[in-house]
């Protein structure tokens, strides 16, 4: 079983939103039709995005930290949005675990968006169907693209490589190793949705140095220094000089 997913490293994300624009560009240009964008340069712009970068401030001034938090569909392993769909438009692919919406079957009842605790689904107000991240399903299998380009648009765009893409069911994949070795976690684990996408926490590299490591207690020079000083006429070690 394959479960494709993104792993997003919050330690590296700088909140540049390159993933947002790249996602919108790719997904608004596809055969499924454009993603709605109303009043993009007006006072009250709104539109459908598959991916958004949110920013949170953690702590109280001056001890604060800014966390940039990219958020898209998490492609849950037990997606609550799929069974509630009355038409079967919302489905999870068996072969790679991607959760998709069939825009030709969707009736736009919005019930699936109610059933998603993460707010990952956004209706397209023009096409009147529910839309969400497809993990660039129209890109990652495209044989016309060079192998290195068969990745979601957001992953390709990230300038700091904060976004990793791969199969979390393969223990040797880059994403599985990242989750395993860098404390990868899932969002809102309390609902048992088992999100496939994981996040890597902010982490600082600290080196703990004990005092006895700065000044070695067992330094042989110091041990020698503590020995009684031999008298000048005593034979030395090599019988050449007394000291």
């Amino acid at each position: 079983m394959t479960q494709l997913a993104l792993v997003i490293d919050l330690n590296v994300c700088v909140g540049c939103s390159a993933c947002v624009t790249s996602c919108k560009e790719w997904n608004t240009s596809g055969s499924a039709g454009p993603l709605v964008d109303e009043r993009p340069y007006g006072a009250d712009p709104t539109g459908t995005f598959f991916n958004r970068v949110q920013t949170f401030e953690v702590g109280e001034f001056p001890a604060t930290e800014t966390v940039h938090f990219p958020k898209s569909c998490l492609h849950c392993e037990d997606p609550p949005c799929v069974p509630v769909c009355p038409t079967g438009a919302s489905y999870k692919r068996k072969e790679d675990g991607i959760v998709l919406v069939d825009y030709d079957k969707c009736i736009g009842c919005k019930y699936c968006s109610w059933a998603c605790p993460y707010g990952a689904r956004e209706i397209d107000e023009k096409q009147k169907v529910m839309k969400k991240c497809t993990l660039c399903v129209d890109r990652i299998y495209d044989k016309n693209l060079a192998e290195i380009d068969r990745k979601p648009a957001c992953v390709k765009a990230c300038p700091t490589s904060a976004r990793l893409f791969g199969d979390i069911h393969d223990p040797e994949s880059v994403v599985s190793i990242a989750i395993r070795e860098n404390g990868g976690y899932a969002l809102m684990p309390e609902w048992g949705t088992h999100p496939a996408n994981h996040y890597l926490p902010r982490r600082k590299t600290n080196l703990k140095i004990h005092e006895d490591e700065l000044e070695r207690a067992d330094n042989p020079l110091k041990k020698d220094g503590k020995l009684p000083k031999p008298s000048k006429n005593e034979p030395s070690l090599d019988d050449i000089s007394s000291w």
Partner: protein
Amino acid sequence: MNPAFSVIFLTTLIGAGQGLFLALFTEQSYAVFHLLPRQGGGFYAAGSLIALVLLAAGLAASFFHLGHPERAWRAASQWRTSWLSREVIALPAFMGVVFCYAVAHWLDMNWVIATLPGGAVVDFTVLLGAVGTILAFVLFGCTGMIYACLRFLREWNSPLTVINFILLGGASGFILAAFYASVAAPELSSFFGAWAIILVLLGLAGRGASLIRNRRLRPKSTMQTAIGVKHPKIVQKTQGSMGGSFNTREFFHGKDAAFLKLVRPGFLLAAFIAPLGLLGLSLSSPATLGLAFLFNYVGLIAERWYFFAEANHPQNLYYQTIG
């Protein structure tokens, strides 16, 4: 959640329609056992027709909730997993049976099917009525479960949701039946009115219980679980949009807490207290009973608005600050 009037009208109208049908068949069941005089077919037929009009109006309202109403037929396909799909099947099925019930009464299709030991005669209309009753409860169950099955909308995720759909729909239907009887069969209006009082009281108890339960709820999801950062103080600076999105429109009712505080006593007064007072005043006057139904129905619209507005979706944690 942001209350959608299409869904408010759907649930309140079909609730009243189901309640009215249940009221009519309750009366017929009493008549089968000779506890009440059996009415002519016209009484049941016209009453069922009113129920059918309410159900059809609710069904029509529901289409306004859809982005693609022309594809609505597809919604019947996922009945194995989706309560919404089950409702889509149950509602037309129930309407079909109510229509047959009306026609059977209108054309006096009183074909005897069985005679019970006590001498009670089960005819064709009774059989249709029994099937309709089962379907009415199935429909109440489906409608309630659409909301009750969403486990992270904890205000809804309770058996009280289904119970209240049954009690509130039943109450409005029986008040309407009392009004209908006061015009069409005055000797029955006190029978329906007495049942209406019982159901309004039960509805008040059920809705009151859910209000108390919801007030005591503590959210399971927090900012900490939402972004996975263990710190007691997390403030959103931007939600990744500069002018709002579907997420800010669909899941926030957009009214302040003071308005909500006004709606709650408002619907308790209009949907429960006022009808109780009017039913206490008179169980025979068409004007009083009509007014009681009007108060109850307007109250139920407010009640349903509050039902949606009070539900706090965990996705709102991600959408607190536009910037």
